[in-house]
């Protein structure tokens, strides 16, 4: 029996890999997505266009301006001489930050009052706005503390000593690229598995399979394992690219990573087989895969944190295998987590995988008789 299942697996792999178009779908888009995602998907700010209106024009205000010019996150687009152009620059998005240094700046600094500086931010992209505010605040606070120290002002009672654990330079690429391992593995595995049964139904070869001595469970194995193999292979390529191309540190071992990967691919395969058992044509299977994929990616924590979602949506994400695998990849890559620490992520995926495979087998039997 094992030999027959093996033969079926070989046949499935050939069916997917022999056709030039489906080979392309498996190899081209994932690689392009890896590169584009890896480079384009960044929350780090560089070259934020900034306009400065320095009404004071003193040594102190020039020192402050110089700090903004020297920061790599900011790029000066205009030194203003009046407040007339501020609105136009912000409206047209030529400047995302306008810094207004008040006329009383030096006077207030010297007399010990709080010298006013206004930072006007374009809020159309709220995330960028928050980050710009944070960057500007850091520069302004540094200036404050230095100026105070240089001019004999009493130091503030306490200062912040900020550090980031696991990702000291807070590069968002370290966050996004491990996420892509989960994202692309899911896309590829799901497509391969979801289309496998539907393709046979559409071309009519499914009936031929049914008259062979193979039991439904053997057919299910033969359909599921190729997706599993392709998924694990694809993930390995991306993991290698993350480590050697994007230089993301892999701090943990391969065992906790691949244990998670295996459970994840099994769960996705189970869901793919469910979709495949329900669909009569490839078109329907594709639509079904798409309908599962989009919400599962958006509600996985890939780009936006699950903690920010409403509670009922957070409860919904508990059914999403990608949610758990994302935690595992990131924890293994950046935190160096071991299998013991990740137990709470492994078992829900195993449960989802088991349940979906049983459901798929049941649906499969129902549709075949």
């Amino acid at each position, binding site marked *: 029996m094992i030999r027959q299942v093996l033969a079926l697996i070989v046949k499935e792999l050939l069916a997917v890999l022999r056709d030039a178009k489906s080979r392309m779908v498996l190899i081209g888009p994932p690689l392009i997505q890896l590169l584009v995602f890896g480079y384009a998907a960044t929350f780090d700010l560089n070259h934020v266009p900034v306009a400065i209106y320095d009404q004071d024009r003193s040594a102190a205000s020039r020192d402050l301006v110089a700090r903004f010019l020297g920061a790599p996150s900011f790029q000066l687009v205009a030194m203003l001489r009046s407040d007339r152009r501020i609105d136009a620059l912000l409206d047209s998005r030529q400047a995302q930050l306008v810094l207004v240094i008040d006329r009383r700046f030096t006077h207030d600094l010297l007399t010990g009052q709080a010298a006013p*500086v206004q*930072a006007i931010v374009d*809020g159309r992209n709220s995330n960028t706005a928050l980050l710009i505010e944070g960057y500007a605040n850091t520069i302004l*606070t540094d200036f404050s503390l230095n100026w105070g120290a240089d001019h004999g002002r009493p130091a503030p*009672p306490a200062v912040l000593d*900020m550090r980031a654990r696991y990702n000291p330079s807070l590069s968002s690429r*370290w966050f996004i690229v491990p996420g892509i391992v989960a994202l692309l593995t899911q896309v590829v595995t799901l497509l391969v598995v979801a289309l496998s049964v539907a393709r046979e139904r559409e071309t009519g070869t499914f009936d031929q399979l049914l008259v062979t001595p193979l039991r439904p469970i053997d057919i299910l194995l033969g359909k599921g394992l190729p997706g599993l193999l392709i998924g694990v292979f694809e993930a390995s390529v991306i993991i290698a690219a993350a480590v050697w191309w994007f230089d993301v540190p892999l701090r943990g071992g391969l065992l906790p990573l691949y244990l998670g990967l295996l459970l994840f691919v099994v769960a996705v395969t189970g869901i793919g087989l469910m979709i495949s058992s329900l669909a009569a044509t490839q078109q329907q299977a594709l639509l079904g895969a798409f309908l599962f994929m989009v*919400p599962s990616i958006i509600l996985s924590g890939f780009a936006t*944190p699950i903690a920010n979602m409403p509670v009922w949506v957070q409860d919904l994400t508990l059914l999403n295998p990608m949610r758990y695998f994302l935690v595992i990849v990131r924890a293994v890559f950046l935190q160096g987590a071991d299998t013991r620490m990740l137990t709470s992520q492994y078992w829900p995926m195993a449960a989802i995988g088991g349940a979906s495979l049983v459901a798929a087998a049941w649906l499969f039997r129902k549709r075949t008789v």
Partner: protein
Amino acid sequence: MNAGALRRLSGLLRKESLQIWRDPSALAIAFLLPAVLLLIFGYGVSLDARNVPIALVVQRPGALAASFTSQFARSPFFRPRRFLTIQDAERAMTAQLVQGIVWLPSDFARRAEAGGSSPIGVIVNGVDANDARIIEGYVQQVWATWLTARAQAAGGGAALPLSVAPQVRFNQAVDSRDYLVPGLIAVIMTLTGALLTALVIAREWERGTMEALMVTRVTMREILLAKLIPYFVLGMGGMAASVAIAVLLFGVPLEGSVWVLTAASGLFMLTALGMGLVISSIARNQFVAGQIAIITTFLPAFLLSGFVFDINSMPRVVQIITHIVAARYFVAILQSVFLAGNVWSVILPNAFALAVMAAIFLGLARAITHKRLD
């Protein structure tokens, strides 16, 4: 156009409309898909961190430490949890129970009174770099508020030499939903617009009905127009539904005028449908057309339009590539019309770019769709 051409066109239009009406999948793509996606995205996607769990470690409690930690309890951004030792707090962070640690060492009060600048340790979990940055910003705000409160209580001068007055234009509450939802409309309409038309000509080829059309007297231009007009109406209907959901359900302000929005949407819809027609003519196969539509329209609109990820921060090469993504121009218009108003300096150049792209794609569709079998 003479009377015969008009009659043929209206006949074709009737055929297309009947096909749409009888096959619910086109109506589903036009209305159901945008609504469902908008609801999932609208509720699921948020970059606003609220109630961030954070560990507070105070090694020697005192009045000064208490005044600082009480600021965290008062902040809407944090949900502080007390830990007795830094080791416990670190373990909680590793287990992801807290996102960051604020640590007042045992000599905190002594050093603050001796010469000031007593260090407060702040450790954030950097795995999610974006979240970590935002949390750092919040901690800085709490610290500045604390300094100001102390200085005022002491009746003395300013706490810090500078006072920063941050002011956010166009989205005062800095609510990420207000900016994500308009961008989402562009992403979703790219998908539906291209998917709608990507399948229609491919379907005629696949079913062999294209050959039947060819032996009639209709011209290719009439076939394309007949495909374009009903799907344009359908797409604009989906667009109207999306705007209604954004404004009525999610409460996104619509500062600009509805007419500007309609005109810009019309231009964008023409571009998206034009792309769909081009894909459809190239692929001649529904499966491949659907794949190409998703890869060449949906993903670039999602990643390269400036809807979540800021275009200015991308590498130069990627920034140049974004200029051929139609959604980029539409996202810019939408975010301005929704949040800022009729800003002509944004609307006109972007609308011009959209018009050029629409002309290119529609012209290309006309040029590559021939009335011939090969």
